[in-house]
């Protein structure tokens, strides 16, 4: 497809800006020597260009998106409408407090509701994404340890099934990583944990249910071991959609958590952001949180900086409009709808798992929470069919592939998360597709390896992309 730079003609333009109504006056400083190449197109060409790009983009709106660990649930349209209200979209972050009372109340309300759902006491909305939340949560732990003179606690324990962001975030926050292996049941191996903790332990990062979709039954023992060693427990909220209204991280013994509003709370992903990764904590960590906190006195909302704040992880108050969308969602679902969402997310995953387990190997065959992991390792040895082949074949059925090759502890992994906003018909159609692909691939592995066939491009040459990086368009001379 043509790039926007390959469309249009010199001299074409839209009619956006008014003429100057004051004398032209430019600062006496060096001007740019090179004229930037930007598109010269009409509005019609611009509009059609992006319509073409949209046709080559697959969103939740286009179909089933069982991308494990990403919680690709339906994004309600009312969220978008609420966020577009001028009273939210057109206010300056540095307006006087009395002119943004509604925005402050929105932050106050959503904090209370999300704290109730997670069992936390306070929450900051400054982090812009899940990984940003992890970084923030770890800095909270760091600031707390520093306040106690425990800077020698440098080690963060991470199970080998953790999201890659966990160790990366911990290193950004100045910690070193202790990886611990999972037990045979896929959960934290208590012996390994006991051996790993010590006087240098800053904390443990865990997601529960874990990336295998398993709820760790030893969770209270796990958090107790870490606490007894003097460490804190961090909850990666990527998988919160499994447990809302069923179990709360705060009750499991976690001290600090992040949420992914763009997963669990139905705000859209936008092709990779903007997200929102609020960080919640227990009361003893409240004073270390970054950014502002909203307090209410006599019906008036005020911004305050926590007393021993760790600073700011982003300018202003976070991805505010994303938070507005999440608030709209929580208001609509309420007391009954929140647990209903999680219950059905778990149900749909179990249903799919049961309907596929006779063909696909399930390394952890018991019930799952909101997602499950299959392995193509046996097929790979038997006939060369890989997880990649199954994933790519699904595209020819109009289905977005599951997460591939993750978690790392399962070989040839496919991680399937159907979410609660899919119908039985959709699940059945996907089950049918998985089954057909399995059968066809066994008969004709070469064909599976050549999939997808019906998409705008076939499998791209990623090696070439990395070896000879072409990261921008270059104009012909």
């Amino acid at each position, binding site marked *: *497809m043509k790039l926007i730079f390959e469309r249009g003609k010199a001299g*074409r333009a839209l009619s956006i*800006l008014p003429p100057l109504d004051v004398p032209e006056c*430019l600062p006496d400083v*060096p*001007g*740019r020597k*090179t004229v*930037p*190449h*930007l*598109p010269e197109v009409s*509005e019609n060409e*611009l509009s059609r260009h992006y319509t073409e790009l949209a046709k*080559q983009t*697959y*969103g939740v*709106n286009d179909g089933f998106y069982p991308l494990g660990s990403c919680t690709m649930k339906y994004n309600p349209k009312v969220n978008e*409408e609420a966020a577009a209200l001028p*009273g*939210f979209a057109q206010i300056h972050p*540095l307006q*006087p407090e009395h002119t943004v009372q509604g*925005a402050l109340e929105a932050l106050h309300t959503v904090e209370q509701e999300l704290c109730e759902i997670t069992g936390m006491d306070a929450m900051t909305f400054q982090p812009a994404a899940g990984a*940003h939340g992890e970084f923030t949560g770890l800095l909270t732990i760091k600031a707390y340890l520093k306040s106690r003179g425990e800077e020698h606690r440098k080690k963060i324990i991470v199970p080998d099934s953790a999201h*890659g*962001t966990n160790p*990366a975030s911990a290193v*950004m926050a100045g910690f070193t990583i202790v990886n611990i292996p999972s037990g045979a049941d896929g959960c934290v191996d208590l012996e390994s944990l006991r051996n790993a903790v010590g006087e240098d332990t800053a904390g443990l990062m865990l997601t529960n249910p874990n990336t295998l979709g*398993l*709820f760790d*039954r030893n969770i209270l023992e796990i958090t107790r071991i870490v606490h007894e060693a003097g460490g804190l427990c961090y909850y990666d909220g990527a998988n919160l959609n499994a447990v809302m209204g069923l179990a709360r991280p705060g009750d499991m013994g976690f001290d600090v958590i992040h949420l992914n509003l763009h997963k669990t709370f*139905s705000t859209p992903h*936008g*092709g*990779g*952001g903007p997200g929102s990764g609020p960080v919640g904590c227990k009361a003893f960590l409240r004073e270390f949180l970054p950014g502002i906190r909203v307090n209410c006195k006599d019906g008036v909302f005020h911004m305050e900086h926590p007393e021993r704040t760790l600073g700011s992880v982003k*300018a*202003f108050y*976070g991805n*505010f*409009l994303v938070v507005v969308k999440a608030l709209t969602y929580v*208001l*609509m679902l309420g*007391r009954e*709808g929140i647990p209903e*969402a999680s219950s*059905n997310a778990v*149900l*749909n995953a*179990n249903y799919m798992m049961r309907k596929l387990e006779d063909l696909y190997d399930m390394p952890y065959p018991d019930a799952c929470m909101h997602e499950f992991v299959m392995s193509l390792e046996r097929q790979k040895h038997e006939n060369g069919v890989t997880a990649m082949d199954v*994933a790519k074949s699904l595209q020819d059925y109009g289905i977005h592939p599951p997460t591939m090759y993750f978690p790392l502890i399962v070989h040839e992994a496919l991680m399937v998360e159907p979410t609660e906003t899919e119908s*039985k018909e959709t699940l059945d159609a996907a089950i049918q597709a998985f089954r057909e692909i399995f059968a066809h691939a066994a008969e004709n592995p070469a064909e599976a390896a050549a999939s997808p066939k019906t998409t705008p*491009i076939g499998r*791209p*040459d990623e090696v070439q*992309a990395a070896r000879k*990086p*072409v*990261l921008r368009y270059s104009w012909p001379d």
Partner: protein
Amino acid sequence: MGSYVISTKQEQQELLKEAGFASFEDLFAHQIPPEVRCGELNLPEGLSELEALEQMQELAGRNRVFRSIFRGAGAYDHYIPAIVKSVTSKEEFVTAYTPYQAEISQGVLQSIFEYQTMICELTGMDVSNASVYDGATAAAEGVAMCRDRRRTRILVSACVKPETLKVIRTYCFGNDLALEIVPEKDGRTDQEALQEMLGADTACFYAEEPNYYGIVEEYQTLGELAHRAGAKYVLGCNPIALGLLATPAEYGADVAVGEGQPLGLPLAFGGPYLGFMAATKDMMRKLPGRIVGETTDHEGRRAFVLTLQAREQHIRREKASSNICSNQALCAMTAAVYLAALGTKGLSDAAVLCTSKAHYLQKELEGIGYPLRYEAPFFHEFVTRTPVAASRVLSALEERGILGGLPLGEKEILWCTTEKNTKRQMDEVVEVLKEVAKA
């Protein structure tokens, strides 16, 4: 109660049965130990869409939308072309995930490739990433890129935006990097102080074009000083100003970063915004976050993919160059559509409008007793002294539905103009301020 669950209660029972469970309780009892099960949540009852939207409208209604805005300081009230909103509300773009699956994500991937190209054109740099969270985190990531084993001290000009400085400081707290502030002199970085502070352990020096006070500093000299000490030069820049002013590349920057909000994103109480990052080819593999590259598929068709992933967290884990996973993709697309809508001439026109209006307002204010605080060239922001308390000036404007500049203490105001501020609006501000000064 609102719900987006599709299955009816009866269907749920069927699904339970087929999955081998008698009930939801049976399903959960298999997995969640009873000692961590929670009771009913203390939340309000759920609402219908109509009720929820009414409640949100009520909240939004208690925020004041000013009819004219003269406040910037990191968030700028520019006009957003209609085409920008139309394109970026397309549901395919809004509801897609990070484009891991290239075959069905060519649209998003190509849009990022086009964005990267535009950022390179704007800044003059060789390579751009696919975006980070905002200008402040871009600056923090930009300085962190420059660290090496011997160089762990970061110098930042005192004239950068306070929000940016706070974020750099916080990231340095995380990274265990030493941060030192180069003092201000007459609204600009003190060059002598900079020279003294630079040393063999300095990783980089960070400044902003224009700076917090709107002033365009001597960036060539600043860069030369940094480079002479072997340090890298990171320059934060306003993208609209780059329609006119010399680019970070022309000033010799190694890394260029900035807040992309002026490129078509609403004020939105501070977010979502857009952090852009670009660098020289030498520093390409130190860039954090996603990067899109061009390649071909097996039939030789042009294709775009996420590339150079060996830098990233899902491959490298604790050895990654950054932890970034989600970025601000839709905001990057917004910026690209905005830049395409304006084009080369439009961007330059926008810059001329912004700065000419600022100069007009500044002269008018000077004439009525609000002198310029710093004698220095400025772009579209400037600081004046006030003859009376700044709070009184701003209240008088507020009564007229005008958001005045940002008070810097009680005697100074940081003003900002954009192409949206008409001569008439500015004359009105002058009128009000004249009255306040008299009273």
